[in-house]
């Protein structure tokens, strides 16, 4: 069995009364391009700090390639991290900062200089090598930060929001760079751009309020059920949820506190569980549902929503259950404003976050 690149084992991190990471456990497989997903304040940066050795866990442990990180001892020579919001000395040139860091990694002066120039060239900053960090733009400084992770031959690279603040072209280049580097190294990346994570990552973990929501391969994460959000014109009583659960094959059904939104995860019926790409399914469903939003009973909305995507994947059973769902809603006197359906990462993320929020409200 291959040792995972990184293992987080029941890690908890408290800052005073604040629990930033709460009994978090997941593994980053060797060779993965691993996405860490979460809303603002979910604990992503603290998790990066734990993996990099900058932050000591209050409880639990972190292992890098099987070696337990000990207090104050970063995983030298195994992991290089791009920290979020870390500044560099403004009076030093980009190349001299990188050369100093390379020398600390054990390179001679000439080799360090060569590596620093090479790393800057890989992030498209060869022409500003001898410019002081203090005069660089935010995006350029970010790319100098990314270049620090290219100085060594380390097996694991941690990138905390590497494309934040970059222009679209630079962000695209960084994504290409990550994919290229992943051929020989394990990469862990966090981003608020879920399309970006979905496009490049092979695995992902979703965290909320410091706890793990789910962790799996990207394919599995996207194919988990069909997520349906029904927006209602009039609030429904909570009693509708058990009814839906009893009559339709659902993984879960949740009604918002104001009774105006239903979040439903249908059991997956297709052979491979993928009813279409997340983008297509979501777009089609949203467009069609929107067109029929004025329909009182919403029958058409449900029928049309995501039809193309479902047909493409041979997932007719979903259609039956959508119709059954709408029948139940009509029987309950619901006035459906719109139906959105999708299976992409963003849809999954929004559904998971909504559930976490409702769980908190319940508490």
């Amino acid at each position, binding site marked *: 069995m291959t040792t995972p690149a990184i293992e987080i084992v029941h890690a908890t991190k408290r800052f005073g009364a604040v629990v930033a990471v709460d009994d978090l456990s997941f593994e980053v497989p060797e060779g993965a391009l691993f996405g860490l997903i979460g809303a603002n304040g979910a604990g992503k940066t603290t998790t990066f700090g734990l993996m990099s050795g900058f932050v000591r866990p209050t409880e639990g442990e972190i292992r890098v390639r099987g070696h337990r990180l000990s207090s*104050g001892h970063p*995983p030298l*020579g195994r992991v290089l991290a791009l920290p979020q919001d*870390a500044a560099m000395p403004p009076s030093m040139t980009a190349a001299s900062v990188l050369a100093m860091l390379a020398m600390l990694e054990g390179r001679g002066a000439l080799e360090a200089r060569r590596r620093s120039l090479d790393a800057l060239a890989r992030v498209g900053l060869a022409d500003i090598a001898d410019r002081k960090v203090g005069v660089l733009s935010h995006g350029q400084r970010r790319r100098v930060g990314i270049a620090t992770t290219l100085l060594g031959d380390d097996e694991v690279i941690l990138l905390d929001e590497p494309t934040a603040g970059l222009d679209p072209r630079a962000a695209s280049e960084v994504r290409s760079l990550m994919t290229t580097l992943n051929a020989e190294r394990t990469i862990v990346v966090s981003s608020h751009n879920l399309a970006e994570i979905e496009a490049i990552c092979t695995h992902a973990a979703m965290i909320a309020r410091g706890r793990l929501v789910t962790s799996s391969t990207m394919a599995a994460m996207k194919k988990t059920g069909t997520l349906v959000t029904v927006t209602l014109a009039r609030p429904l009583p909570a009693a509708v949820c058990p009814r839906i659960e009893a009559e339709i094959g659902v993984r879960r059904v949740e009604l918002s506190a104001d009774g105006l939104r239903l979040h439903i995860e249908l059991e997956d019926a297709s052979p491979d569980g993928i009813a279409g790409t997340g983008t297509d399914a979501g777009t089609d469903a949203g467009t069609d549902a929107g067109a029929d939003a004025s329909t009182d009973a919403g029958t058409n909305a449900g029928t049309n929503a995501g039809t193309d995507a479902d047909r493409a994947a041979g997932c007719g059973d979903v259609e039956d259950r959508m119709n059954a769902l709408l029948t139940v809603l009509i029987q309950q006197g619901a006035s459906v404003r719109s139906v959105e359906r999708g299976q992409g990462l963003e849809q999954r993320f929004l559904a998971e976050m909504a559930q976490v929020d409702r769980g908190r409200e319940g508490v």
Partner: protein
Amino acid sequence: MSSSPATPPGGHAVPNPLTQSFLVARHEAKAMLISFRAAFFLVTYGLISGGIGAAALWADRKTGGRLSGVGAQFEALSLEDKQEAIRSVAETLGSEHLANALLKGHLPPLVYIVLLLSTFAIPFLCLLVGYNRIADDIHSRFARYLLQRVHRGPYLAGKILGHWLACFFAIVVVHAILVGVATATGRLELGPLVDGILRAWGGMALFVLAYVAFSAFWSVVSPASFLALLFGGMSLLGLWFMSFWVEPLRTTWLGRWDTRLFTLEPQAIGVYLGHIAVFMGVTYLLLRRKDV
């Protein structure tokens, strides 16, 4: 599969801690020596020492060379008178070692006076030059780039060594300039000064190291850079005042031992080494536990 932490497969050999400490120290000393604060250190300490030295030379001339002639006067005494003189001076200064050094010319009285009166500024200047060096790394999070490549021990050692090098270099430059001016203008003879100055520099090396470690402690514990200066400055003054009134501090705090250190008195060296070990040890333990 597991691998050695020193040479990970596919990775590179991590340099030894000593090399890393020197790399950090070199960067640190270079950054400090080209800073405005280093220039302030040189000018302030130069003016204070130069002023005290000039005043001492003036007093020496006015008294017909009684200060500079102490060694010759002492040599002219009988053995019994010598012993009596040493006893008397030792009683005043609190150290027979220091009395011996002064009367026998190992520490020229002029150098002693300059050191005695000018060293009060050095702890504050050391603090001023380096109070923010670790704190800024932590608060700007540049430490995150450094501490994924260097263990915290070598990092701290490098920071202290670099700070020490910059401060000690500034002091030696000031002393060299003053001695150079005094001997070039014929006010002092270089020969008798050399031995005393070298001893004083030996003691000064420990003196500066103690206060650099003290600054590093405040730089690590303070939640903001300017607080390191504030807390450090207040505690220096507080400990100095308290050393006059609180008995344990009277015998243990650094300020009571500095002039004896400049004659390399073993007991003074022991006190300074003890303080240096405590400051460095506590600072390392705090840094080791600190989230950066």
